[in-house]
Every structure is written in structure tokens, then in C-alpha cells.
């Protein structure tokens, strides 16, 4: 992302387009249309990462690792995950989890090279089978959207969870 970026005011045309984009994405993921999400909203050159986090002393920062991850995906590996979920043996998500993405605090910046940087707060709630207490994932997404053939697509996504120890049996869902 070009470092020279301009903050885009909430309510402006681009900001509205981005919020709309995020809501559409959340709808596809929550409705289980991950194949459509991948096909229609994700760039073929995407890098999609959830860095590993440790508790560290304040002087060392937030504790996110640069080179270690919970998820480190390309379009090919995301496609592989989507294909896996469509086999008859994807026990982890069959029966599927009920998931809900809550996206708030959307902040948009536009770079000189036309890329759009988006920071948002993320809350994903997940229940399976007879669970009554959802697994929750709170954190932040740092996305870069790129206009490809006039359509915004997910070009970079970094998911920064508030957790160091992940309290769920797998990460078979999409963030």
C-alpha cells in the first residue's frame, strides 16, 4: 500500500461504497456462500493472514508476530479450503456452524495508487450444534481493497485478534 494516503470522510461516496462492500461480504460469509464470496469479492492476488500473537512487555508492542500466523492464505489455499468444505467429508463444518460477522468502526483511506485501505472492528460469533454460549472472536481487520475491472476486491486482509490463546476447536470459518 502506498504510504501516502488520504482519509476518506464517513458519508462520502467511497466510504458508503466500502461499508456496503463489507456488509455484502459479511452477508455472503454468514449465509455460507463462501464460494461466491471468493469468486466475486476476492482478488486472485489476495494475501489473507491472521498473525500469531503473544503476550509481551509493553516495550515490545502489541505482540503480533511478523512471520508466524494462525492463517496465511493465498487465493489458491482459500480455494482449497472452500473446495474442502464442499466435499462430503468436511466434518469440521458439516453440519455447519452458525456464524455472524459484526463490523463496526469502519475507517477508510484512499492511497494515491487507487488502493483503498480499510480498518474495521470485527466481532464474529459462532455456535455449533446445541451450544448456547457462542465462541467469540473480537479483533480488527486491516484490509486493502483494489478496484479490478471497476469492482472492489479484497487484495489484502490482516485479521488482528484480541486473543493470544484461541478458544475454539478450529478456524474452519472465514473472517
Amino acid at each position: 500500500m502506498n504510504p501516502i494516503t488520504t482519509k476518506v470522510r464517513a458519508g462520502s461516496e467511497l466510504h458508503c461504497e466500502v461499508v456496503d462492500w463489507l456488509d455484502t461480504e459479511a452477508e455472503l460469509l454468514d449465509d455460507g456462500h463462501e464460494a461466491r464470496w471468493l469468486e466475486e469479492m476476492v482478488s486472485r492476488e489476495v494475501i489473507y493472514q491472521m498473525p500469531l500473537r503473544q503476550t509481551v512487555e509493553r516495550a515490545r508492542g502489541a505482540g503480533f508476530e511478523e512471520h508466524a500466523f494462525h492463517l496465511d492464505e493465498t487465493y489458491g489455499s482459500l480455494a482449497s479450503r472452500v473446495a474442502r468444505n464442499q466435499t462430503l467429508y468436511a466434518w469440521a463444518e458439516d453440519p455447519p456452524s452458525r456464524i455472524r460477522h459484526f463490523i463496526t468502526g469502519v475507517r477508510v483511506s484512499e492511497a494515491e495508487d487507487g488502493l483503498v485501505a480499510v480498518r474495521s472492528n470485527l466481532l464474529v460469533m459462532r455456535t455449533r450444534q446445541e451450544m448456547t454460549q457462542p465462541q467469540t472472536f473480537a479483533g480488527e481487520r486491516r484490509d486493502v481493497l483494489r478496484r479490478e475491472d471497476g469492482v472492489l476486491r479484497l487484495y489484502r486482509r490482516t485479521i488482528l485478534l484480541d486473543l493470544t490463546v484461541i478458544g475454539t476447536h478450529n478456524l474452519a470459518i472465514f473472517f
Partner: protein
Amino acid sequence: MTTTEHRPGEQPVGLSADHLLRQLDEGLPAGEIPAALFGNEDVYRHELRSVFGRCWVFLAHESEIEARGDYVLRKIGEDNFVVVRDEEGGINVLFDACRHRGVQVCRADSGNTSHFRCPYHGWTYNTKGDLVGAPLWRNAFGGMSKEGNGLVPAAKVASYHGLVFATLDPSAPPLAEYLGGMTWYLDLVFGLNAEGVEVLGPPQRFVIDANWKSGADNFSGDDYHLGTLHRSVWEIGAFPVPFRENMLGYHIQASPGHSLSFSMAPTEDEPGPKFFGYPEELTKTFDTSRISAHQLDVARRSRVFVGNVFPNFSILALPMTEDGANHPPTGILTIRTWQPKGPGQVEVWNWFCAYKNMTPEQKDRAYKAGLGTFSMGGSFEMDDTEPWITVSRTGRSVAAEVLDFKLNYQMGMPGIGIAKRVEEWPGPGIVYWTRYEEGVQRNLFSFYSRMMQAAPGQWPDFTFDDE
């Protein structure tokens, strides 16, 4: 109405650990294990003391704490220990509790430091754990000896191929004796060349509502589950050896408690993956500098190595890819611990390793392939945790207790299936050909039972009678 009396430590309801261990001893020769072992609270309390409070447990890899002052915070059972390299280069394993009031002195997961200072009153320790001071020392403690007031170390600490283990029991045998025949097999994974292995980053940690023994049981050599639970991975091309083909190989009870399994073709010149699928440029560097020609040959023929060091340290090496359409499978090496967190909870710590002499590109490929398959977001492992959750639910159920529910561990017993004992084998242990076999898991539970019932200071045998 009469009052029921309970001895101290005995559960007011439910089966006692003693009862279940007797059932285990009676059932094991017939391949039966009481399901309640996977959820019973009394069993769990005994495990923390008799297994985790005594056995050698894995804590860290030396490459995580290479510089003086480097530390990581780790667990023995449910308790925190600082693993720290001191100013002289030695590795210390220190109970994370201030000697003054028992307060946590290490509050980060990793870092580099010259000292640990208790946040309560300021008692301060060096990286050997020695007490070096406290505020206004002369007024407060003048005349009191610092010696003897340091952080409490684990009873014994030792490394094997850079794998750091510790035990809380001073009566524990030396690590090599405890590992027994398993050393031969650890050598042929971690000692394949002179450089050895390193970890690629800090461990992933995730918590599953399952019992820690499900992980140990699975990695002792449960190859049969691949055909059903992991069937999806063949459909997406993540693993190159077909299920039926992959069931060929050896099941090995390396020594009491420690088991492993090799996927291996019956003939030496089969075209499939060699050396767990590592690239040829790397495998050219595998040699006999640290292992025997026999060990090198076994490693060369291995498509998959999976094993568990009792109680909760597992190792897996095999060819994997996270994206079969774009990258062929390549060798990955993961090591992990199944940290107990209650009878129905386990915290998985998962590290990826690489041979130190791999190129940055090879390490990156191996890391991505490992992360995309054997991690909480990986195509293999995301399915594993599903059944383990319900093993533990069955284990803590009233139904399992009152219906006397036993789990079936009979695969490969005499007259059952095709597995046969192998006499011609270059390494130690009790060896079976073809992996349709659950003796590897019975070995885990047999040693487990003996540890659970061993008197303080007493240890079970570390060699088999009939080897």
C-alpha cells in the same frame, strides 16, 4: 438416613481413579479401555500429580531461546515455568512463583531479560533463578540469606536434539533412560544431518473441549482414522499417498509409553515420497554424521512419521500441501504438546520446525504447507478436534459410568485384522507390519496405568520383557 463418608480426595459421586485404573488393567489385555478415563475428574486430579508431576515433559526447543537472557513461559501440567537461558548459556526451568508470596514473576509469553522482578514487593531474581535483591534490602531482610530463596527449579532439566524437557520428580531416571527406545526414532527425525532442526516462530495455542489423552492417543499411531475423518484432504490433493497405500508401514512400541508409526512401502524402490517428502536438494544433506546407516535407511523409506513421547509430546513429519493446485506436497515437521487444562479441556501448543540448512524458500514452503494442514486452521487438523470433543463428552457422561462403557482398542490383536509382529527390524521396540493395529495405543495406556499407580519414588520398567 445414613451419612455417606468419603475419604479425603475421594469424589462424592462418580467412579474413583482407583476403580477405573483397575478396569483399565483388567480390560487392556482384551483391548478394552473404560471411556470414563477421558473425562473423570478424579482421574484428572491423579494425572496432574502422578503423570505430569513426575514424568519428563517437553517445554521448548533450544532455538526459541538462543541468546542469553531469552526466555519463554511454558507449562508442566497446569503450572507455569519460565524456561530461560542464563548468562553462562545454561537453560533453567524455574517455577513461576515468587518465593516471598508466590506471585507470578514472568508476565510475558517470551522475551529477553537480565532478571525477573516480582510486581508485589520487588523480590528480584537473575536468569539462574537466584534471589539477587529486594527494595531496601538491609532494612527489610538484612541478615537473611539470599541463598535458598531463589526461584524453585524443576527437579531435572535435559535436552535431546535441542528438545528441552524437565521433570518435577528428583527420582526420575535420566531423560535418555526415560525415552528408552524412542531415542532411536527421535534421532532419525531430528538428527538427519549435522545441523539439526529449529522452530519456525512461536507456538500456536488453542483450547479444545477435549481430554489431553485424545491427542496422545491419536499421535501414537492412529492411522486408520485418515480414511474417514480426513477423507476430504485426498479430494483436494493435500496428501499424495492414497489411504489404503498409506496404511502400509510399521507400528512401533518404541519402549513403554512411547509409540510411533511409519508409513512405508513394502519394497525399497517404490516411487513414492522419501524422507517424509522433503525436497531432494535437502535430502542430499541427510547423512550418517549423527545417526546409523540403518536409521538413515528407515528415514529414507518413510513417507510419514508420527509418534508420541509419553505423556503429551507429539511429532509428525509427512508430505503436505495447503494448495494442491499450485504446490506439490512437501515435507513438514510439526511438534506439539497436549497441555491438560481440566478433565474436559486441552490446550494445544503447536510448533512448526525446519532443518536449519533449508533455504529460506524451502522453510517458507514447509511453513505454509504445515500451517495450511496441521494447525487449527489447517485442512487436516480442523477435522481432528471434532471427534475429540465428543470422546471427552462420552468420557464424563453418567451413561458411560453406569453402562460400564468400554472403548474398543482391539485392532491388530491376535486373530483380528492382518497386522503381524515383525522380528527383522533394525531398531528397538515391539514392531508390527501394516498399520491396522492399535498396540501402539495400548502401549500408551499400559504405561499410563503403571505411572498412575506407581508409589512415590518408584518407576515402571523402561524396557519391555519380551523385546
